[in-house]
């Protein structure tokens, strides 16, 4: 019973994904690119970096990168905490 419910949910989810890919805009022709065009044009004079991707990673969306570094930090702390030695060992 439980298994059938999971299977139905899985099939519905798959159909949603496939239909998404069919009706999404054509590959390689983005429609509204205001944010990205602004970054490409202004990355050099605002941040001084030649690499626009790095300027996005550390400047325009630097807060995301801080979060990302935190995720890695969290995972390391978690792994070390889970695999630690116990007092009674």
């Amino acid at each position, binding site marked *: 019973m439980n298994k059938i419910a999971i299977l139905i949910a899985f099939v519905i989810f798959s159909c*949603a994904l496939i239909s998404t890919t069919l009706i999404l805009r054509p590959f390689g022709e983005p429609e509204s690119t205001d944010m990205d065009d602004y970054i490409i044009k202004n990355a050099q004079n605002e941040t001084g970096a030649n690499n626009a991707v790095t300027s996005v990673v550390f400047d325009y969306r630097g807060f995301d990168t801080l979060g990302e570094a935190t995720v890695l930090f*969290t995972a390391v*702390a978690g792994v070390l905490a889970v695999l630690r030695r116990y*007092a009674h060992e």
Partner: protein
Amino acid sequence: MNMSYVLLHAPALLIAIPLFAAFLTPIIDRFSKRVRNIFVLAVLIIEEILMIIFAWDVFTNGIHVYTMGAPNPTSTVPLQSAVPVRIVLEVDGMSAFMGLISTTVSLAAGFYSIAFVRKETGQGKFYTLLLLMLVGMLGMEFTGDMFNLFVFFEILSIASAALVAYRSYYGDAVEGAFKYLIISSIAGSIVLFAIAILYGQYGVLNIAALAKAMKSTTLDMIALVLLISAFAMKCGSVPMHFWIPDSYTVAPASITAMLVVASQASLYALFRICFSLYGNTSYVATSGAILILFGLLSMFIGVTMAIPQKDIKRLMSYHAISQTGYMLLGVGAGLYLLGNPDFSTHGMAAMEGGIFHIFNHALYKGLLFLTAGAIFYKTKTRNLNEIRGLAHSMKFTTIFFLIGAFSIAGLPPFNGFASKLLIYESVYHVNPILSIIAMLVSILTLASFMKVFHSAFMGPPMKDVERGDVPKSMLFGMMVLTAGIILFSIIPGWVVGHIVHPAAQSLANQSAYIRAVMGD
């Protein structure tokens, strides 16, 4: 350091301070354990104070925006651009309200942990992860950017999963954490897929900019369904609730109290998406109806599964599912009525009830989990058949448990009653059956907790339990939450008027949310 400077930078500081402290904790831990404990508590207290000041400012002066990395925090949209380019933090009444809940419960959990995990190894990691959970919650609540929401969602999930597995010498702790992490990462991937669909259509990631550009296409509908299912999965609503008892039961008690708030952060994200992102589309009534349905199922199934439980924390976990149902019901009814002429009367009251219930639930369910942890600390068991007569030795814990139990059952004059009454009265106008089910669930909750009280605290005292209550730091942690409950029980009218109403108002007012970022 004058006050206006702090208030201007408060959204970033509130996230940056615990993050900085979390990075610093492993280093301090090497030198002195005592200094580390004091440091962590000091950070939590500073957070609480700063959050209260900041929340008061938000409730009186309206939305705060903070643009990361811009020359000026309020310049959300650059001059040559039509859309926001940088990450914008946007704190409105609802965000500040959730921030208050998170900091309060973290403070209580921090105090409680000092004694509770004293005998464990690896405490440095424990406190680091606890601070990171706070960071994750505050980040989810303050951000105005979809992708940023996802990043903090993952920080919160990973930190919580690691803490659920903290007592990894118990096999089932690791199992519960495994399940939690699998569910979280599936939910995270689905959220990211939905964000990608939205980005592919509109080319922006800011919630306000997306809401302004929203065209109600089929893709938007698919994205909404994906987002609702992912966040409902993560907040423990019924179709995907099975992970809640497993992970709540095995986590250390202070972490279980934090997990309650962590799932409320997902609940907040769910509301934010339904109201602020999809508020002007034609899906509002449908998604409101879906939330009401989830709420009803959660309420009923949660409480019926709670009654036969023998494990005290497992029982409380099922009650947590059931109480989540009240919040979904209240806010869902508000969403269902949004835009109707009825909204200003019943819809608003329903939302206030649901939102007030979020705070109440965090307080009393946090308190109940902490008392369950105190019982476990004393007796080393969670089985209700083995526990009895604790009222003889643990006087304060008994009082705290009774306050929490009366509050969760919605007995007057406790705060649980105030929020439930708002929900009963207002959802009655959507459909009378909803109110009747809600009241029935409330009665069953009371019965269930009276059973727990009778079997755990009454009767002859247990033999092999030393006398005396739990250590002071644990009592103080419980006291923080009890003080909150008592405060809210004495002046519910003032709380609803000055804290809950601004939160509900700001959640319902989508145009103000958009205007704060995009200008007029």
